């Protein structure tokens, strides 16, 4: 599936944004007409705890250059989900190291519904990073 990783000028950044905090947060940035790089794609999720480790690895494999998990943090409406997510991200980091993917390509953050500055900060930092690193090199398949 990933034989043809599109090599593009700019790496794509995927944001998994929680429907109760970060996604409305991204909308709030829009309402403020604050510009940010257009290579950022936001998907709405109830809670990013839904995604197994493999999902992240597959994303890098498919050519996504950076992933930002924008959660609700301590204000998570699903008690225990943030903790479970943080543990999963640790395991994803382990797997990324094993597969030689720079772990800075995956960030776990908390963004609230009005955290415009924090949102822009995260996006710009990740964008700088993917510019520096380029697209991820797919791991050789066993």
């Amino acid at each position, binding site marked *: 599936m990933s034989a043809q990783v599109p090599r593009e000028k700019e790496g794509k950044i995927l944001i998994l944004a929680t429907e109760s905090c970060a996604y409305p947060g991204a909308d709030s940035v*829009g309402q403020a007409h604050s510009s940010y790089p257009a290579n950022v794609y936001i*998907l709405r999720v*109830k809670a990013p705890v839904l995604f197994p480790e493999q999902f992240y690895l597959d994303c890098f494999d498919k050519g996504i250059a950076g992933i930002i998990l924008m959660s609700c943090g301590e204000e998570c409406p699903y008690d225990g989900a943030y903790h479970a997510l943080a543990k999963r991200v640790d395991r994803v980091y382990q797997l990324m190291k094993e597969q030689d993917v720079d772990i800075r390509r995956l960030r776990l953050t908390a963004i609230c519904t009005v955290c415009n500055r924090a949102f822009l900060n995260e996006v710009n930092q990740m964008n700088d990073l993917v510019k520096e690193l380029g697209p991820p090199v797919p791991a050789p398949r066993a």
Partner: protein
Amino acid sequence: MTDEKKKSNGPSERIGVYLCYCGGNISDHVDVEDVRSRMEKLPGVAVARTNMFMCSDPGQEMIMEDLKNGAVDRVVVASCAPSLHEKTFRSAISRAGKNPFIYEHANIREQVSWVHHGNAATDKAARLVSAAAAKAAHLVPLEPIRVDALRHATVVGGGIAGLRAAKDLADRGIVVTLIEKTPFLGGQLARLDRIAPTGDKASDLVCELAGQVLAHPNATVLTCAQVDDFDGYIGNFTLSVKIQPPADPKIPEGSAKGTDRPDLPGRFIPFAGVLPENPPEKEAAVKLNTGVIVLATGFSSYRPRQGLYGFGTSDAVITLPELIRKMAGRPAAGSLLTIDGRKIRSVAMIHCVGSRQIPGIHPEDESGHLNEYCSRTCCGATIHAANQIRETFPETRVYDLYRDIRTYGRGQEELYDQAAKNGVVFLRFRPEAEPEVSFADPADSFALKVNVVDTLTFGEELEVPADLVVLSTAMEPSDVSDLVEMMKLPVGADRFLLEVHPKLRPVELPKGGILLAGTCQAPFDVGESCNAAGAAAVKASAILAKGYVELDPFVAEVDAARCTGCGDCVEACLQEGALSLIPVQVEGQEGKRAQVTPALCLGCGACVAVCPENAIDVNGMTLKQYEAMVESIVSDQTAA
């Protein structure tokens, strides 16, 4: 639902994509026609259309027409944020006689045209719409989950908010049980005297409402009672309630008297509350089956640590609630305020004690907490007390030491103005240079002195002589850790219970059927507490009125054919009871399979990530749908 899934084996081949200009909001930056022509070429897309305003009647009718004549069986609308119009388009689909869950939304205004420009905006819009279409291809019709609702409500907490909610619910014909931990009704309000800004007597407010609740045929009050077990879901909760004799069985008789209304039951005991009946002498347990739960667990008053502004080292340093109690009901015995037999010539009142604490300046308490919030009510209460002193005891001077005055709300500003007219002396300090309270020299006739750097006089160092220092202490949430644990309640960083949305859904919790009333949520004054309680009561009765509740179908579903019964999902599940293993017969063998209780499932997906067989998914947002979206985003099929 399963049958429908079987029918729709492959992805849809008849996706309708509808793109909105938003009257230029989108089309000024995104070439909408270009996106349309790119979408038309996508596999599975049957029609791609545009409109100046998709949300307008002609826009919606375009979708309905395509659905009715069978041109499309999945709908994608690309327009503004889904929070604005997702419901609009789902409802249009319902009106066309189709299932509203065959819908996916692409956000190309807030997340594209308002933040990007030129070709980059058009390209990004195309990718986002194609991702939405890719997800839509895998959507299946879903049915809302319908559960019967018991026409019974439980209110936890017998303060003013709990009483208000119980009264409102009972008046609407709903049977209510109110559970109160102490022997008394009236909560923290019963421990006050006259209430800012109106000067109402707290005891009148408490007696009136408690009396009405106690006399109501639909209401039952359980005092000395606590919830000790919780189960179930919206419409069908079960609570077990433990009734325990109070640790101190002695009732402070004092000037006990009946409520002011002899026709109403209960006795009012000053600074304790309304005692509906004598406390129980034996333990008892009560089981409640209830449809909704209103949490009105209230607040507790901040206790300053030993030595803070001299607190605990001298009887001349007291909290505002203590001052209110000591001043209550005292006739004006002279021109000087007298507290504990001491004549008070000068009072220093210090604001923000335990509120608006700043990391790095204020130390954390023993559990590592800082109260960074404003307690909302203390400025009004402090100035109200200052006015009372100045108006009743004109010889007693009042110094008000504050950081900022926040007497906002109706009637509050007038209090502040009145304080100035009454000759209250305001001194303003910076948080990093708090006033220092120390014992005065024995030669001095005042007990204490307060040193403060006053920013109103541009940093002059002043020494205020005082016979009494009053600390305006914060409101802290009551310790409800047992309920938080039991009911899995979300708690904010400030430790108050956290609503779904502070503005749009202010009295609801993410767990359906549990509502918030009053100061368990944030510092409120009495009026605001009653507002919130009234709102919670209306929400609760709206839930119970129909006799059933309909829940969003975005919950986990097990693919029984793939499930091996390993139980990993049950282990990962964050909502007790939402997932369980049930015994089944598999090819003549005893086996187990995971089973979802849809009414309990929150749809967070914690189970999805851990299933080794990919046998569990959240309806309406499956892993496969997300994978399809990611593939569309990286794909070049939408390139111009």
